[in-house]
């Protein structure tokens, strides 16, 4: 069964958009472990509570990965809001992950 990690949106921040993501990983392989850690750090720092993340292990659910058009893992798919986007690899490049997720950093003052 695919593991799910969900965070609820704070009620008072009704205008905040929830980013829905799915991360495809391959068991406890090193890049997959790194990808989970990197993504969780990014979410904690930049998305606070406004995200939903589902982690799919392709070793346990290969059919699902193929049906979703996933060829290599780790692979992060942004499902919502549109447009969708993909980031391949261990997600160590925070900027490209944030760009794909549509999160724009405020310029340094």
């Amino acid at each position, binding site marked *: 069964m695919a593991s799910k990690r969900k965070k609820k949106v704070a009620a008072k921040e009704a205008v905040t958009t929830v980013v829905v993501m799915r991360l495809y990983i*391959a068991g406890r*392989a090193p890049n997959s472990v790194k990808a989970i850690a990197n993504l969780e750090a990014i979410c904690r720092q930049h998305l606070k509570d406004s995200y939903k993340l589902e982690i799919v292990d392709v070793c346990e659910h290969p059919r699902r990965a193929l049906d979703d058009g996933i*060829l*290599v*893992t780790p692979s992060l798919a942004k499902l919502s809001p549109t447009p969708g986007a993909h980031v*391949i*690899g261990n997600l160590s490049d925070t900027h490209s992950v944030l760009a794909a997720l549509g999160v724009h950093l405020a310029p340094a003052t």
Partner: protein
Amino acid sequence: MIDAPGLNAPPLAPDKAAAAFKAWMRRLVTDTAELAAFDAGEIDAVMDRETVSALMMPEAQTALHDSSRIVLSAFDALPGEVCVLDAKGIVVLTSRAWRVSGAAHARAGLDVRAGENIFDACTDAPENERVHATAVAAGLREILSGTQQSLRVRYACPSRRARRVFTLTMAATSAQGAVNVLLSREWHSEPKLLGKIDGGTAGKAPEIAACVGAENRLLAALPAKDYAQLASGLESMSLTHGETLCEPGEPVRHVYFPNDCLVSLLTVVESDRALEVGLVGREGMIGASLALGVTRSSVRALVQGTGTAMKMDAKRFLREFRRSQALQRVLLQFTDSLMVQISQTAACNRFHLVEARLARSLLMTAERMRSAEFRLTHEFLAAMLGVRRVGVTVAAVALQSRGFIRYSRGNITIVDRQGLETACCPCYRYLRVTNGETG
């Protein structure tokens, strides 16, 4: 050398083959971003459409192999004696301490090794260990069927030369949907006890072994020397729900030390009306009035929860009681706590609501049975609480509607123990404190 199949296997693929495999995998990847990640070494697996499977990169395979080797080495180096079984009871893994200790004890007492089946070892156990081996096999079946999450069994291996007793803790673990069992073995050193027993009564080995495995707290509190004196007079037996051990006014012929059964002490008001005044499990005994010089029972002792107990002839018990100061001390302490329980129950029956009293009774029963599930009929509960059956129904429905228990045809399951404690009268906490059962 680690005792696990496949652990010392050679690396999965030589470099050349790995490079060729990687080159072949690269052809499956067509997208530019995917190729860039592939070449940067950030890919763990590539999906193969034909076989509908994930093909692991050689580097990922090596890393996984290394990490499992680290985990297995760490397991092997654990200071405790541990062993992992698969769902069929076959040993998958043992720690070094398990194997070393097994060798040191001449492989006594279910010292199974990787690849062996523990159920076979239980069946093949020597005659004088059979009682314990059967208990272990039954416990393992309960864990594998999901009835229990963990169990402890005290196991004795009688021998003329040395005392070999250990506690085997069995706990369920689950990996990828399959249930495994983690066994942990802890040896106890009580050299004098078994030496004495084995030397004198070689022909009675199975019964003696059962005595050694007794879980009754009063017996466990005795020093080894005093227990050894008592042990040859103890007989292990099963007590079943509804069985009467003694009636008011009748002479006490036997005393009973419950292991995992539960006995209710009832005061009989009229021939057909009785009220529970005390509850005795493994923390006590039936027939303690003998210690006060009273040879006739004042209560009816009715078995409420089926289980095992150690039985002893009353005359023999009195002889041992006069001889052993330790036994006198232990029994007087128990008599005192029983009197506290009886007097508190009397006050509770008078002042507290049926629902709170029912909650208290259920918690006390669960503690003594060491199970959150047990059987208590309406008639029995009515006698315990001194109310009519309809009163029991109302109270049980109220506790069930609050989500604390499940009650169906006499089968009771405590679903929310903490919640049930909040529904109890203060007597429960008081009795726990006075009987030293807290924590």
